[in-house]
């Protein structure tokens, strides 16, 4: 397939793999966090770990937008979905994520009108076609998906569609990275920064990682060759004693991001004081809510929500997985009490989560 196969060329992969082996220093393990779930997925799907030497260790970061939604917010979503007047719309991979009261898929089985959409615009179209119903869109994701929500809200306002609203759970990528960098057990040497988020926000928001924490960063695309290329760039930085934000995804990402997307975000959303992340806890200024001007389209303003907090299960060690302190299979419940069918922790809930990716694709390489 054009524009995809080129980035999955096995011959080129061998070349890069060889180059990485040459750059790695014997017995010095370099821990590289790939922040984004898309990277985690690609690493396992294509078997990238087997193309790097033992001295390169991928640590899977918090960038799975489905995994980080706290259980209490899932319960709020279910409460919205259970209102008789509501058609509740969501991306497919949010359907199976368990809250304290089960998943949206189970709510649907109990009679809630839950529908899978591929874009918030599909939800808006449902609202136009069902004027007697209230269509709520479960807005989740980083700065990647937030602009689509923003543009949909602007369109709803322009067209005067008043039976559409968004339940906003959009999060931002910078604050959780800072939280991870501040954590006491941290053992990370470098970062593979997310590609799609960076198409929107640019590369500047990662400057603090090199300036304040002295860890090199490479903004990276999602094909397996891209990831190997990023490893080469990071190892070169470390070897040459440089510490910079480099851009591997030059075919799309600009230093200042996408001004139109950022403008749409600024017009519709603002930072929350604080937001809870599953596995990481409360992080200041880490999420977005709708501006008061858009209260009419804000599900949190329009409907009463339970808003109850639900503690992460005690057995779960996701927090330690997320900062690279332990590997997924080192968690005490991995693969036993916690599986993709019955996830306990955030990292097991979506195929982009570190534990689920490992469970689904990677159990081959578990050390005996």
């Amino acid at each position, binding site marked *: *397939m054009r524009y*995809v196969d080129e980035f*999955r060329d*096995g011959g080129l*992969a*061998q070349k890069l*793999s060889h180059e990485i082996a040459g750059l790695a220093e014997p017995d010095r393990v370099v821990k590289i966090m790939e922040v984004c*779930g*898309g990277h985690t*997925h690609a690493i*396992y*799907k*294509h*078997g*990238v*770990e*087997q*193309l790097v030497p033992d001295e390169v260790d991928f640590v899977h970061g918090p960038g799975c*937008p*489905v995994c980080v939604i706290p259980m209490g917010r899932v319960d709020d979503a279910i409460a919205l979905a259970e209102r008789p007047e509501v058609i509740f719309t969501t*991306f*497919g*991979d*949010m*359907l*199976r994520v368990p809250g304290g009261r089960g998943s949206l*898929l*189970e709510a*649907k*089985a*109990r009679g809630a009108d839950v529908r*899978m959409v*591929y874009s918030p615009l*599909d939800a808006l179209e449902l609202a136009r076609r069902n004027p007697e119903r209230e269509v709520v869109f479960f807005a*989740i*994701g*980083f700065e*990647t*998906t937030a602009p689509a929500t923003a543009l949909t809200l602007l369109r709803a306002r322009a067209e005067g569609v008043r039976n559409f609203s968004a339940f906003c759970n959009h999060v931002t990528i910078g604050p959780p990275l800072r939280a991870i960098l501040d954590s006491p057990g941290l053992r990370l040497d470098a970062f593979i920064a997310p590609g*799609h988020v960076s198409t929107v926000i640019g590369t500047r928001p990662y400057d603090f990682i090199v300036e304040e924490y002295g860890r090199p960063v490479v903004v990276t695309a999602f094909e*397996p*060759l891209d990831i190997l290329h990023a490893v080469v760039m990071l190892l070169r930085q470390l070897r040459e004693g440089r510490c910079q934000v480099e851009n591997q995804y030059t075919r799309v990402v600009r230093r200042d991001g996408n001004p139109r997307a950022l403008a749409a975000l600024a017009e519709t959303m603002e930072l929350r004081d604080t937001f809870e992340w599953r596995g990481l806890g409360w992080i200041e200024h880490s999420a977005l809510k709708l501006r008061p001007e858009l209260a009419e389209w804000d599900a949190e303003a329009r409907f009463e929500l339970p808003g109850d907090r639900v503690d992460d299960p005690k057995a779960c060690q996701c927090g330690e997985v997320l900062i690279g302190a332990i590997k997924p299979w080192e968690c005490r419940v991995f693969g036993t009490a916690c599986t*993709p*069918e*019955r996830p306990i922790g955030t990292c097991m809930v*979506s*195929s*982009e989560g570190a534990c689920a990716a490992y*469970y*689904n*694709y*990677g*159990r*081959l390489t578990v050390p005996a």
Partner: protein
Amino acid sequence: MKQRRARLRDELITLAHGSGGKASRALIEGLFLEELGNPLLNPLGDAALLELNGSRLAFTTDSYVVHPLEFPGGDIGELAVNGTVNDLAVAGATPLALSAGFVVEEGFEVARLRRLAASMARAAERAGVAVATGDTKVVERGKADGLYVNTAGIGLVAADARLGEENVRAGDRVLVSGTLGDHGMAVMIARGELQLEVELASDTAPVHELTASLLELGESVRWLRDPTRGGLATALNELARDSGVAVALEEAALPLRPEVVGACEILGIDPLYVANEGKLVAVVAADAAAEALRRLGAHELGADAAIVGEVRAEPAGLVVLETAFGGSRIVDMLVGDPLPRIC
């Protein structure tokens, strides 16, 4: 080394229980087998095998709830015949007769029902089988999605057919009869929700001639399956699990249409889990693999047949994929339907 039965821990049936993945398995083993289990049902094959005066009969049933009812490359009538013919064929049987049950929603157009019945008749003729008995029920508007069809079938198992996961050995080769995922993606695109403009037709077809040709190879043919719901990955996971072997697939060898790869890429779905309705997956002895491939390739339905992997002793119970990129990974059974990923 059969694994122990899955348990059903859910309180309600969700769509995941109908997906063919782990949740379906839990429903079947944790509820239906517990209540209905008997020596004929327990093997959970594509068809039950009955002994009758020295002959072996294969007996199977399947229900069809596809939406839309008509899609590029086929319709629910054709699907209902081919699906049951194929379940018999992969049990090593020649189809003898089918039953057809129709659950029709009030208000359904008669002309459309006639069209679908005629399509069924054509499919039955192509497969050389008669619809010998049937049943019709009409339900109130809103109670069925237009039309549900159930078919059952019986077939005569070839006297020398020795098919079953217990025959599979390390070193055996895995073949597929053609491109993967065509039916599932064609139907998903035909629903019109994706706004993808892709010309893709369902592969619905009877595979009984392909299986008959392979069965002439005798005991070299170990195991046959039609990888419908859940796709090739699910069929091979069931083999690995039930027989305690490993299956290693080679990604570069998998026959895939570029349209299917492209649509799957956009949706974040793996074509290995997407349904086929006219394909065969066969495990054959290594020394018979080339001849099996030649036989599949000689039939119009097998033009894209390929040897896609082999059976290994380790890692027992798992399906692994050697990626075109040079790595390897596990191909696990899905929990429920493959869900599009958000990014």
